[in-house]
């Protein structure tokens, strides 16, 4: 009885400690985002003050309007959308079938190839970026959204294949076998049975790759040189450096660009989290 009582008291202690800790961590994780949002709706005069305003005394959306109308931000966002879409499409077309092959077939060289897809992630980005710059310039893809998207597949395609393989592995094989016995080709079984079963996983994988492509900075900095193909992370960074972008507008730019990420993450986070961890646990 005594032991029982101490145990439940100790459980209560750890429950309370867990709540306190999680609340604190969640606060630390969210505080910078909230602060940036609050800054983005302040007037510039209320941002730089002698006495700090924790709650904005007046609210304005001027920072958003000015950023959108007076800078190249709409073009940057549009370029990013193009790059992100093309990256996802390339991964979808080449990665889905590769992932399916790894998941469903035993063949010579399978382990080595899969390991190869993992090891390419170890190659330093800088080591790839420099030659990519030279090659892209030779084939005329430097400073183009398509070229940048192709460069992104260097680190996103292996990721896509590994993550999606986890979802394909989890899809039951029985339905597929049944379809095969009914006379469906392997092609038919793949497109009509397996891919529809794994569609949530496919969606989560695409979203993960899309977020990574949307956020990417280093490749974009090196491989784009003009307004025509520059993506928002590079554009925002250059605006800070060149025009001494005011804090309010910078904060507004940050909020605009993380909005799609937050929305997409909120929608598919459960499947996405499952996919990332499944790939990592087995890998």
């Amino acid at each position: 009885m005594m032991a029982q009582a101490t145990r439940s008291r100790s459980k209560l202690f750890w429950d309370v400690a867990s709540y306190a800790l999680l609340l604190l961590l969640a606060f630390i994780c969210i505080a910078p985002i909230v602060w940036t949002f609050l800054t983005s709706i302040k007037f510039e005069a209320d941002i730089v003050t002698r006495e700090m305003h924790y709650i904005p005394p007046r609210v304005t959306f001027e920072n958003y309007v000015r950023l959108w109308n007076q800078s190249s931000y709409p073009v940057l966002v549009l370029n990013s959308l193009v790059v992100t879409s093309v990256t996802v499409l390339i991964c979808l077309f080449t990665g889905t079938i590769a992932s399916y092959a790894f998941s469903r077939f035993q063949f010579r060289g399978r382990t080595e190839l899969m390991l190869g897809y993992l090891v390419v992630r170890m190659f330093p980005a800088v080591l790839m970026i420099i030659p990519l710059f030279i090659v892209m310039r030779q084939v005329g893809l430097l400073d183009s959204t398509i070229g940048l998207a192709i460069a992104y597949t260097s680190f996103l395609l292996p990721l896509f294949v590994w993550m999606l393989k986890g979802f394909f592995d989890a899809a039951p094989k029985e339905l597929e076998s049944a379809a095969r016995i009914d006379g469906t080709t392997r092609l038919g079984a793949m497109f009509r049975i397996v891919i529809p079963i794994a569609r949530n996983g496919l969606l989560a994988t695409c979203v993960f790759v899309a977020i990574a492509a949307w956020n990417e900075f280093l490749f974009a900095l090196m491989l784009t040189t003009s307004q025509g193909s520059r993506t928002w992370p590079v554009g925002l960074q250059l605006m800070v450096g060149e025009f001494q972008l005011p804090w309010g507008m910078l904060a507004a730019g940050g909020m605009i660009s993380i909005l799609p990420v937050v929305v997409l993450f909120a929608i598919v986070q459960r499947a996405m989290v499952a996919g990332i961890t499944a790939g990592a646990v087995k890998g």
Partner: protein
Amino acid sequence: MSRTFLPAPYGPPRTVWDRINPVRLIGELSETRYWMYLLLLPSALLITAVVLYPTLYGMQMSFREMRLNRPDLGTGFVGLRHYERMLSDPVFWVSLRNTAVWVTFSIVIEFVVGLIAALALNRNLPGTKVLAVLILLPYFLPNVVAGHMWALMLDPRLGVINDLLVRIGLLEGYKAWFADPGTAMAAAIVVEAWHSFPFFTLLLLAGLKGIPTDLYKAADIDGAGPFAQLRLITLPMLRTIIAAAVILRVIGLVNSPDLLLILTSGGPGRSTQVLSLYAFQTAYRDFNFGYAGALSVVMFVFLMVFAWAYIRITKVNQE
């Protein structure tokens, strides 16, 4: 699955359309022995073109003189000259030391905070699902925005963290965290840890779910306290996941200069100059591609050696 027991999916072609129908042709192709290789071909070609070829190109570039700001690119073989230069380049040694500091402290903080968060989330208390989403969010945010959010909060004139620290009496006046060589690296590590600790939480949480609860029940009966259980059950059971997470994160930290490029560009002085950033700036700012290639090759070799040694050590411990 043996083919012979299955009915042929298609009969012999009867019409002209049967001979040229692409779906039918690919369907027939899918029944051949080479189908999986065909499925792998597009991605393998792409990866060869955008990863393998550039990497090999980069490696051979490190033995050449290559400067983009010269009309002829100045390409001549110089053998090991870049590597020799590195040995006597003080910036290289400073960068190497900074990389060690940057990676070690970031990994330790991210692992400890990530583990604590995962342990707390794994208790599955009501209402913590929402907190989990908030805690995982920073990992998905762009480097550029993460960097500027913290730059805003740590600003010497209007930084809210400065204000809070002054209010509770920990600081005399506002401090320029990123402009002081003594604090710039520490401040950057805080930002990095904030950004990436959820990666550990994510992986460790998945690992924790895989530990059978019987183990803890048995330990309870034996009277093992929570810390003994952590040391004797949880950490040993998580060993593989921890190894995988640490290696992936070390690769990320060594290879990507993004956050430091945004926050400090290596300054003030050389106090936050890491190897990847030095290599990138050598290429991007000085257009000295040969030397930048040599720096990246050295970085790559360090990573390979680290990964190999780390896997060896964790394997040995397991036996």
